[in-house]
């Protein structure tokens, strides 16, 4: 199961005394098991902060987040994360990167490598298992990062603009592949993005956020059947709607 309950979460940055920034202000949200939710909003709206808090890499100033009823305070392999930058360990080969999570859970090296192989197959990179990350292209690296995050069998996959640094072609391919993986692995996905197109193509629901302080502006249900046509009138309509919301945010 991967049901997330975010209740009144606020996060304030800055030391006592000096001016502080409110990155998140009273955010509440319910995410169903195996749902695909995209977060979109202007820079500084706290999307990444929310994701980091759910990952356990940051703590909320107030409020709480429950995963299947259990409060989140520290990082845990139950919540896998794919980062925006290249976060693969450059000193480990591709397969050793993917095997890292299972190994840390106390699974024997041989067994971990078997698991890693399975996930490399899932992202279509088994023939690159002995390469080092520097030998791979950007898209391949993020594929490995996804395999690595999945290798610990997480209930929730947190993705922080994972395709942000990739070219448009690779990006489209990876979006498509991600949906396939999501269909096979039954995980809840929280996906932060800057791209309208990406959100409309991927999400069950799009959470539009506003900046300073970071709040939920609107939640849009995307009821289009998959696989989606990026240029269908319904997609365009939705994109326009989100764009308008974001434009209002910018002008405020």
């Amino acid at each position, binding site marked *: 199961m991967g049901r997330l309950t975010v209740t009144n979460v606020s996060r304030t940055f800055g030391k006592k005394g000096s001016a502080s920034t409110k990155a998140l202000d009273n955010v509440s949200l319910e995410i169903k098991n195996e749902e695909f939710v995209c977060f979109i909003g202007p820079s500084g709206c706290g999307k990444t902060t929310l994701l980091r808090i759910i990952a356990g890499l940051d703590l909320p100033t107030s409020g709480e987040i429950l995963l299947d009823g259990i409060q989140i305070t520290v990082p845990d392999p139950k919540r896998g994360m794919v980062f925006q930058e290249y976060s693969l360990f450059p000193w480990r080969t591709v397969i050793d990167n993917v095997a890292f*999570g299972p190994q840390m859970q106390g699974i024997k090296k041989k067994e971990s490598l078997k698991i890693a192989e399975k996930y490399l197959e899932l992202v279509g990179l088994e023939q690159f298992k002995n390469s080092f990350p520097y030998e791979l292209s950007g898209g391949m690296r993020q594929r490995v990062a996804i395999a690595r995050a999945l290798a610990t069998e997480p209930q929730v996959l947190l993705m922080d603009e994972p395709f942000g640094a990739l070219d448009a072609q690779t990006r489209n391919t990876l979006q498509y592949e991600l949906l396939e993986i999501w269909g096979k692995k039954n995980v809840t996905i929280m996906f932060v993005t800057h791209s309208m197109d990406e959100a409309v193509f991927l999400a069950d629901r799009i959470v539009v956020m506003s900046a300073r302080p970071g709040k939920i502006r609107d939640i849009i249900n995307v009821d289009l059947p998959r696989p989606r046509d990026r240029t269908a009138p319904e997609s365009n309509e939705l994109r326009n709607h989100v764009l308008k919301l974001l434009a209002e945010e910018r002008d405020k």
Partner: protein
Amino acid sequence: MDNNIKEAVHKRGLEALSLLVVVVLWQLVADLLVKNKLFLPSFVDVVLSFFKVIESGAIYADISVSLLHFGIGLFFALIIGIPIGILMGWFKTVNRIFDPIIEIIRPIPPLAWIPFAIIWFGLTHQSAGFVVFIGAVFPVIINTYTGFKNVSIIYVEAAKVLGCTRDLPLIRYVALPSALPSIAAGIRIAMGVGWMCLVAAEMFGVSTNGLGYKIWWHYYLHQMDFVLVYMLLLGFLGLVIDRAFRHYVDDRLLKWREGVVM
């Protein structure tokens, strides 16, 4: 065959020519200008002395004794320096405790420790090793520390999310491999400094062999050609040690790095 020679000349021709010119110039200057073996022994003098040193077998004892001193110093520099650097780089408190001590001791030239080395260890191999140790330990500490300080937070966070949350595994699986290039560079510097300290360390007669010791011994006898033999030996051996280390590290430990420039 012809092509092989051509290629070799093409690749290493200029380097070889440069060395050859220096040797010829040296020989000419020594023979025709200086004409004094004490001031400048010629290339041929040095080569002949070199063969004498090999013939007498002294060279093997000298090299092994020097490597022993160097080895003692470097060994302790590594097993003391690396853990201290790791603890300083990972734990802020440890850094605050060690930093002032290190900053005060570090600028003291290693050679200034020689009197205490003799008092503490007597005229022994350990005593020479201690001076090498003093020279080598600080580059090791500082580069290990810097390497650990510069571990990218993204790797640490990625590891944490994957279930590696305690200090010890984080150091072992993330920080140490990430800091390895910096540590390796520190060891190279340490080997260079330690090698330099060797001559001085052996100067005060901890043994009757050693490359550094022999420089002084032959100097007292005014055999400057032998002095030059040992000088060049120190240089060559230092070069070989450095190359061997670099080769090993680049091939075995750091092959994950793209386009290594070291």
